[in-house]
């Protein structure tokens, strides 16, 4: 149910970003970019025991009037950002978590692919499929 899903690498450059095309994509790109600050902030705050998935999920980064931004960071500092339309019936936190989990799983699969060089844009069809599945729901 996301309107925009982004995967950002450790060095904060995007590996994958996709938005619902009907909207102004630039706006979402900008939103994701600004959300990185919040992510960094949260990462530094949650410095204690890493690795717990709960801490991997950063939760709602910040809401605006139109949408909400959720963040998730992996152990390797790869960040996932999901932008959800606020007008949508507010998704439960667990749904967002499950979305992140799916993303993380498919990202892991992409990483396992020996033909994928870390740092390259993600061009995996499977990954795209999963992302589409998440976004199509938005309609």
């Amino acid at each position, binding site marked *: 149910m996301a309107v925009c899903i982004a995967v950002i690498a450790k060095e904060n450059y995007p590996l994958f970003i996709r938005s619902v095309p009907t909207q102004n994509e630039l706006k979402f790109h900008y939103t994701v970019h600004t959300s990185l600050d919040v992510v960094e902030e949260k990462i530094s705050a949650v410095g204690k025991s890493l*690795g*717990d*998935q*709960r801490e*991997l999920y950063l939760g709602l980064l910040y809401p605006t009037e139109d949408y909400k931004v959720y963040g998730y960071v*992996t152990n390797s500092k790869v960040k996932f950002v999901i932008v959800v339309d606020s007008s949508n019936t507010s998704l*439960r*936190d*667990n*749904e967002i*978590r*499950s979305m992140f*989990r*799916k993303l*993380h*799983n498919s990202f*892991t*699969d992409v990483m*396992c*692919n*020996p*033909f*994928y060089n870390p740092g390259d844009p993600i*061009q*995996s*069809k*499977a990954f795209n499929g999963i992302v589409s599945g998440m976004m199509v729901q938005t309609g």
Partner: protein
Amino acid sequence: MESLTLSDVEQKYYSDLFVYCDTDNTKKVASNGRVLDLFRAAQLPSEVVLQITELCGATRLGHFGRSQFYIALKLIAIAQSGLPLRVESLNSVKDLPLPRFVVGKNEAEARHAALYQDAESQGLYPPSSMAVIPRPPGRGHQNKKGFNSHKRLDLFCLYDFQPEPTSPVISPHQSPPTSPHSWRKHKRQHSGGNPDRQAVGAAAGAVWTQFREPPAAQGPGPVEGIWASHSPPPPSQESWVSFTADTPPSSTLPAMHPSSVQENTTIRTVASASTTNEIQRQSSSYDDAWKITDEQRQYYINQFKTIQPDLTGFIPGSAAKEFFTKSKLPILELSHIWELSDFDKDGALTLDEFCAAFHLVVARKNGYDLPEKLPESLMPKLIDLDDSAVPEQPPDVAYSASPVEVTPNKSPSMPSLNQAWPEMNQSNEQWETFSERSSSSQTLTQFDSNIAPADPDTAIVHPVPIRMTPSKIHMQEMELKRTGSDHNHPTSPLLVKPPELSEEAKLTASMKFVAANTVGDGYSSSDSFTSDQEPIARQRSQSGASPEALKVVAPPPPPPRPQPSHSRSSSLDMNRTFTASSGPGQPQSSTTAFPPAVPPRPLPTQAEAVPAGGAALTTTSPQQIPQQPNFADFSQFQALAASEQPSSLPEVDKHSEAGQVEKISEGAGPLRTVKSDGPADERTSTTAMCSSGPLAPPPKPVRRRLKSEDELRPEDEQHGAQKSGIIAAPQTAQPSIPRSVGKDKKAIQASIRRNKETNTVLARLNSELQQQLKDLLEERISLEVQLEQLRPFSHL
């Protein structure tokens, strides 16, 4: 020899046949053996064959040159059409159907022929099976999917990712991106003489031709296709099996290779090893089809061995990457192939996965688009599932099922597709079930989400997050795939949770309940406390157990004790302080006799001291605090008691105590009095005073009234304990010390307060007295001075 003019179709066809016969790969001469076999296959009477041979000049030459061969073929065609064999007729006969060669009971061939017939609008091609001599037994299957066979061959050709394309027959028209040349890509030696290769080529050719069957446009194509045999790289053959873009109606290949229709689809029918047949067979099921024939599989396995000798082992991703990079496919496609074939997503390829990947690469090389999902036939069999870990079908098995007999010289052992299929299908089904299970990851996640909406109450207590890191989930998925266990993994951790949760629930419940309890008897001793809590907790835990349990996983519930009922943290500490204070308190308590005599003011101090001591003594906890409301109530009592005290302290105290007792009284009467919070002070004093028993009974009933049975129980325990001992206050206090923690707190606080007050009072008093003393001393000095002055100088 007369010059021979051949139509294009004929030319192609004959070329293929020549290639087929060119076992020596001389490109010039067809081996006699093959030729004769071919002629025999023409189903012509032997004398006719001889005649043909003679006519074509081979007899003279002693061998079949290309021209002789062609002539012979034409003569065969003539003969087959019933025309008299004449050299003149070679060129005169128009519309001569291509010679037909029957190989045998090859269903495939028959079908091929049929296909060709259908396809061939021109009718040039006799309906009879244009048999390819070395027709693989399984060909029949392929026929249905001529396409498949096409593919097969191509694929097979691709096996060798050799850099140099030595495709024997590569028709320029060949549209498929992977022309047979590409076959050579693999490392295999593509020596022209490699029968396998040729077979591959031929097979590919056959594939092509089969492919082209339906398209009627390709006249020669189908016919040649029939030949689908081995194709040596005859240079002259211009018409390699072209991968026509036409999609045979029967073909169910997913992505039809865009290769353009090739007019010249001459399958190089090169007599080759059975591999070609196999290849054909392999190519036939591409999709039904994406099946891997045994030959292919064997090839794959060989390749696998070069990387990983252990067939049950894995090929690491890096090695696989290098290997497949040789195929010169774009990385993106290789990546996609990897995604498809690495079923368990472990970054390594098992034999099955490797075969699937290889197969896909071959397909891609041949121009077939990669599927979006891994085809069933390529799904790796789970090693765990399959008893027969060996993916490859033993050729023997295959053969037995093979309906068609392969000419002995051709195919040593052609595992039948049929045989391979059912097994693969089964495994596929199994695999599919697993793939369904793989979706359990979803269920796993959903499980978490289910856990989320836990009982808020319990959640509040210990909001423990569920530990399910993605990798863990992944592993679990894998496990599920592998073992097929259903949520065993997830359930185990989950199962662990409920007990923890119940504990926590208990705690919370107990705590809350205790808070409600006026009597802190339960607190007096950990046991009692627990016991108090347990029943209560049980009720609560039952309600919210499971969902909460799930949620509340991680941290074990903290000791229940330090909760609502205790305002102070560690009961033990308090007890210790209490005991410490009880020391002085005790003597005080022992001297409770004083209090009554002491003026009202000190009374409070004494009362403070007493409670301190008493609390320590009683330790029964109940007295204090736990229940603030009681405290308030008791304070009232205390007032009464205080008022009563002066009158008849001991007794009054006792009574007051008794009255106040309600609370838990530990057991000893004296101690019991201490219990109440405020009033505890007095009570303690009285309890202290009362050594034993008399008070006990009265408090008991009082207690019961106020307390719950649970509390009474511990109280009774203490009671009895105290009674039994008539223990010294401290002694009684000791057992009750733990219990009295909570109560002690209040009592201690109260006593402390009182003590402080007493202290201040005394200090004031002291200072005053000292001041007075000083004054007096000064006066005395002054008076003495005066006296001396006044005394007459007596000493004078």
